């Protein structure tokens, strides 16, 4: 940016148009400095707001992880809790909690945590019937779940950063996982991968490393809390 000093002498030799241009430059300069001042001020504040999305396939443990984060920040007595279930598509609406603050030294992150329905390419009401839900409820659950997937996909544009939650007992090399990560990269979203359910015998975190070698992977169990302490570290490292 080029700056010009304004003096009375300068102004006298300019016609009206030039005076207008110089005034414009003067005000631009004020704007420029005030912006820098506030940027410097925000350095001392060191607080950043982010919309953090929890994404992944159904039943990977997104809501369990959301609950663990909420409980850790707001305390065990908090009334804010998302429904969790062993049955797929328990979360069928995008749900969020605002003003969750985490700290690391002088750094602060103000999170809006967005828990999303699992992304799937198929939802068959008969699968719910097989799990003991009556036919009408199963159909309604399937209808809500399909809308949930559509909403999750729409919300992808609104989040600043994403925790991709994967079930480490399942094969990570699936179309849904690869499409999801591919989209986050294409949309320039920051991401970390949580390899969840490490408390299970079948857990295999190495497979996730092999499929997604370029991303920060946090092995943990949202259910038991094992490895949870590494999550905030990763959040500050990747998102701050």
């Amino acid at each position, binding site marked *: 940016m080029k700056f010009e000093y304004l003096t009375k002498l300068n102004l006298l030799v300019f016609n009206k148009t030039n005076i207008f241009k110089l005034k414009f430059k003067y005000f631009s300069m004020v704007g420029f400095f005030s912006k820098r001042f506030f940027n410097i001020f925000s350095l001392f504040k060191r607080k950043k707001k982010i919309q953090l999305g929890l994404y992944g396939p159904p039943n990977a443990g997104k809501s369990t992880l959301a609950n663990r984060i909420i409980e850790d920040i707001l305390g065990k007595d908090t009334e804010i809790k998302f429904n969790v279930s062993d049955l797929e598509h328990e979360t069928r609406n995008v749900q969020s909690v605002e003003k969750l603050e985490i700290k690391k030294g002088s750094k602060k992150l103000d999170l809006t945590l967005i828990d999303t329905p699992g992304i799937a390419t198929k939802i068959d009401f008969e699968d719910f019937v097989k799990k003991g839900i009556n036919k009408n409820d199963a159909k309604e659950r399937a209808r809500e779940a399909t809308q949930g997937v559509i909403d999750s996909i*729409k919300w992808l544009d609104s989040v600043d950063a994403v925790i991709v939650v994967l079930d480490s007992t399942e094969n990570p090399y699936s179309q849904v996982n690869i499409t999801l990560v591919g989209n986050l990269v294409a949309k320039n979203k920051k991401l970390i991968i949580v390899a969840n359910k490490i408390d299970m015998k079948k857990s295999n975190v190495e497979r996730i490393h092999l499929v997604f070698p370029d991303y920060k992977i946090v092995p943990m169990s949202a259910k038991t809390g094992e490895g949870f302490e590494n999550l905030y570290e990763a959040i500050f490292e990747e998102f701050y």
Partner: protein
Amino acid sequence: MGVQVISYNMLRKLDSKKKIEKILDVVLKGDIAVVEGRLSPDEELSLTAKAMQNVSGKFPGIEIAFLDSDGAKSFIEKLKYNLVKLLIKDRVGISVVGPSKKIKEIKMDPDKLEILFK
């Protein structure tokens, strides 16, 4: 159930929306679409959303998988692969999309696709 092979030349003339409609038309008829090349990540996600919009009792969704030759491990192999990809762009690999009513699972492996029918 039939298999329709859709050439890259046919799809490249279409915009993303029409491309997705073309593939979904095949699948909604109950056939498997084998597509030369790969959809973009955005198109893959749009295809998922579009499939969800069409879910009903008779059509519970799709099975989708792709085979990409990105199995290169060494630096030279990766360089060669990226050069080829640069030249022929999204024509690399094949995508398979089928109705989940008839397909139980498509097992994806970096080197092969295995379609398991119900």
